């Protein structure tokens, strides 16, 4: 719920946006949504990669200690 409110507040804050080509209101709306999703996906990927690395390191440490 917190996230939904945060997302809605992002969408509702206003400031002028002018361009010499028509950016399209629909496209302006959807790109905010897609960009937010992408941020989540990219952070999730980073976290997963970090966790995988950590596990790999742990496994390697364990293997090294048993080798000793």
């Amino acid at each position, binding site marked *: 719920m917190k996230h939904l409110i945060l997302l809605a507040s992002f969408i509702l804050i206003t400031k002028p*946006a002018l361009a010499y080509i028509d950016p399209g209101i629909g496209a302006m709306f959807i790109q905010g949504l897609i960009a937010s999703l992408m941020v989540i996906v990219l952070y999730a990927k980073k976290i997963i990669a970090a966790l995988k690395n950590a596990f790999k390191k742990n496994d390697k440490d364990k293997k090294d200690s048993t080798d000793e």
Partner: protein
Amino acid sequence: MNKIFSSFRDPCGYIYEENGKIYRYVAPSYKQDYDKLINSGLYAELIKNNRLIKTKEITPKNGAYKLLEVEKIDFISYPYEWSFNAYKDAALLTLKVQKSALMHNMTLKDASAYNVQFHNGNPVFIDTLSFENLDEKAPWAAYKQFCQHFLAPLSLMSLKDVRLSCLMKQYIDGIPLDLASELLPFNIPFGLWLNIRLNAYFQKKYETSQTPKNRFQNMSKTKHLALIEGLTQLIKNLKSPTRETTWENYYDLTNYNKTAFKNKENLLTQYIKSLKNVKLIADFGANNGYFTNIALKATPNAKAVAFDIDVNAVEKNYMEVKKNQKTNLLPLVLDVLNPSPGIGWDNREREDLKARADFDVIMALALIHHLSISANIPFDYLASYFANFAPYLIIEFVPKDDSQVQKLLASRADIFPWYCEDEFEKAFKKYYTIVQKDKIKGSLRSLYLLKRK
């Protein structure tokens, strides 16, 4: 001064040609953004990475804030002439340029596919005035244009039919997303569903809406970068289409024996070497560029554009160019029977093939029978058409007895009593003088070097 017609859309400047050189006029209204482009280091970074066309500041005149001399592109090509991977590379370049711009607190104010050209073997961004100061909270104004100019055509080419890039000829502002959404298969990657289907839905929803454009101020630099990363992954994941085409294995199916093939190579080399100051060659019906490369070997300082109707043959040629980092060859998709027309405002915004041609030599090898027998084009029309393009023409005559012509005649009535070498020469002599003519040993064919009258 010859103002380039297509540059009328941008109020910040325009392009013109003078004494064979290309210049960009930078209007005083673009001062802040131009200074930021230079002072932020963005221009230097893009130039270093060969992503932006090189420009040189010269003494301004006519009230310009800056006057730039722009490196000349050998041949201006358009998205509907690019193979799938060339188009993909152009899209990825635009995203890389936007990413670099974001890192320097700037952004692309447009993302037109026409802002990319192929220069020395690589895609390069040509619009120096496309950069503006980044307002982090504002959405990317060029996002919709990027989807229409790149994402929609590429996904249609990849997932439906590679020939659908021809829609770009009809829609100068890019393929409408509702049309792309209709044409795409039901099952598409989630990213395409978001950027094309949902995008099209919201565009329609807000079409007549009075919602102020300043309402959507929910972006941040992180989000801008994430959007670009998402689009990059989406485009990278689009696979080359795999549909088989008629001419992609042409050289495996040809009736040439080894002697004839070698003799044709030697004659072509000899013809090209006999010409002085050859800078740009056009090869019509070039297939995978085999003979274009033979011509280029004969004149190492020249460049060539290899045109063919077969999308897979052009793709093979493009991938070879890319793999071998060739800087002198540009493979393009073109139907000689229906060459790219002038499109856009006054049919001049994107020029037709003739208007863009500044070739020194035209090659038309093993092509004439396809034009005259398959498409009923009289010799006279062919001669006058080719004479538009270059002072020299190297053309191969394929007689009726040749097995390839017999194949073409197998399923249709022979209504071509005029298709013979004498009539060919008679028609072409109206526009050209014959410099050299040779029988290709080991075949029934002849090769001609013609000079325009």
